[in-house]
């Protein structure tokens, strides 16, 4: 016990050093939508946690809330120089809508995909108008996540195929403000052996990488597959990313849990996968990551814990990850190590992951959770999250800008 206290003391003493070295200077937070009251619940959720994106100097945030009694998707935008977000626009239709995935395209344009009445919907948003909605055919489809490649959207989602959800990739051509579904395929060519859920996708110059939750071994693991022949829709045989636990119980159960993988591209052709992982089962979920290794037989490398040693005294939730072309890479999540739920960040340094830092303005009393992050081309950090003053109480949607320190 004395040793633990001494170790904690040492960590506390070291903490200010890391805070001084953080690579962003944060503005004051702003509220994304003025529509909030005690019966409205905003949700920042999506497969891959893509709920914020930046195109040129336009920042966009997509979320779901129930302001009119039905969960619907909304989008708010602001210019970087503006202190306020514009009046939000309704993106979804008449049905119950959930989990919008948002990506930036060129020239202040964005694309969204979401689940509505158990079908996947998608549309473009330009500065002037909303493009028409496309609805992909099959029912029992959910958990959409987007990337783009040339003039195409790459949409991955889980759709019911017999007893199980199966990860599907749909290519969608962008034609002005209109979307046209093109080829699609199951990411794993073999029939699903168990549930395949919550996919994420990134597009590199010459390949597409998909990762998802997969329950085939009798517990949840993170799997990946890549397509390196973009003229076809064929992925290689899936591989496992998340490693097994050395503490697995030989008598009962099949293995530890993992949840909600997120992918980010950074540098030139580099990709990070990050997810919540319960291999150290006494501590609850921790944030783990693995790097894509192009040219290797095993697509992703060894698993590394992202959070610092303080993370062991709290549980981590809602993993989000972002990268930029210069090679910056940052992982965000929320945890309660300081008593209240706060937004935490850790970024890639030369020798691994930085100490964890609570984001100023997204910490303190009340709950700050469900972060979603993006890095723009200059490495500036854009963060949106959910704020609650009481547990299960009404929500506010918040945004914070972090100026990159050169």
């Amino acid at each position, binding site marked *: 016990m004395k040793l633990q206290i001494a170790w904690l003391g040492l960590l506390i003493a070291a903490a200010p050093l890391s805070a001084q070295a953080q690579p962003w200077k944060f503005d004051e937070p702003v509220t994304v939508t003025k529509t909030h009251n005690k019966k409205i619940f905003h949700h920042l959720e999506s497969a891959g946690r893509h709920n914020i994106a930046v195109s040129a100097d336009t920042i966009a945030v997509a979320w779901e809330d129930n302001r009119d009694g039905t969960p619907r998707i909304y989008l708010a935008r602001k210019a970087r120089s503006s202190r306020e977000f514009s009046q939000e626009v309704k993106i979804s239709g008449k049905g119950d809508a959930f989990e919008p995935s948002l990506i930036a395209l060129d020239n202040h344009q964005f694309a969204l995909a979401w689940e509505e009445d158990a079908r996947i919907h998608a549309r473009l948003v330009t500065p002037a108008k909303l493009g028409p909605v496309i609805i992909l055919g099959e029912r029992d489809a959910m958990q959409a996540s987007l990337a783009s490649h040339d003039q195409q959207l790459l949409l991955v989602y889980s759709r019911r195929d017999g007893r199980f959800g199966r990860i599907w990739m749909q290519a969608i051509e962008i034609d002005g403000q209109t979307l046209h579904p093109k080829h699609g395929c199951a990411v794993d060519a073999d029939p699903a052996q168990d549930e395949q859920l919550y996919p994420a996708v990134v597009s590199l110059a010459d390949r597409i990488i998909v990762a998802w939750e997969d329950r085939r071994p009798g517990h949840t693991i993170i799997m990946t597959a890549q397509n390196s022949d973009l003229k076809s829709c064929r992925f290689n045989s899936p591989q496992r990313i998340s490693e097994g636990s050395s503490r697995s*119980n030989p008598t009962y159960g*099949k293995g530890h849990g993992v949840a909600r993988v997120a992918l980010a591209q950074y540098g030139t052709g580099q990709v990070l996968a990050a997810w919540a992982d319960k291999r150290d089962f006494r501590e609850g979920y921790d944030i783990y990551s693995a790097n894509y290794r192009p040219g290797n037989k095993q697509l992703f490398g060894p698993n590394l814990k992202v959070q610092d040693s303080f993370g062991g005294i709290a549980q981590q939730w809602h993993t989000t990850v972002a990268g930029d072309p210069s090679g910056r890479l940052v992982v965000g999540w929320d945890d309660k190590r300081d008593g209240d739920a706060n937004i935490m960040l850790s970024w890639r340094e030369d020798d691994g992951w930085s100490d964890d830092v609570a984001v100023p303005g997204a910490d303190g009393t009340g709950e700050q959770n469900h972060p979603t992050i993006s890095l723009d081309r200059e490495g500036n950090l854009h963060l949106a999250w959910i704020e609650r003053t009481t547990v299960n109480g009404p929500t506010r949607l918040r945004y914070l800008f972090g100026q990159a320190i050169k």
Partner: protein
Amino acid sequence: MRAILLLVTSLLTLQVMAEPPHGYPFLPFDKAMQQARIENKPLFVYFGRYGCGYCEKTNKEAFSDKQVHAAYTKHYILAYVDSESGKRVRLPSGEQVTEREVGTRYNAFVTPVFTFLTADGQPLLRLVGVQRIVDLRQADSKVQQLLTKASKP
């Protein structure tokens, strides 16, 4: 014939790994909340996870007890939450969230976690990790005492 047997065995194995104990009328969280209010009975919420070894151990070694079964099916509305699932439930506030989010809010950071709640959702008692028969019996006694005490003027 052998193939059919293998299929049946594998399906049964999957059920054991993913689900609450057999023979208990567990409901989804929102349905259980509704039922608890209708019957004015406390809730017993089982936060499990697909492939959870300690859930399976507790199912086999503690929930299999006849007295535990009798007490828990009589005294509580039973709810099961897969704390990694994306299935949606509607909370009494009208908010719709995934089962994973329910697990997050009730701090189901390990599995199993068992939470006793009043009919209006107030926490009474929480058990974390593997439970033995005696643990479940003692927890039931404690919750019943708490409820009796609370009902006295």
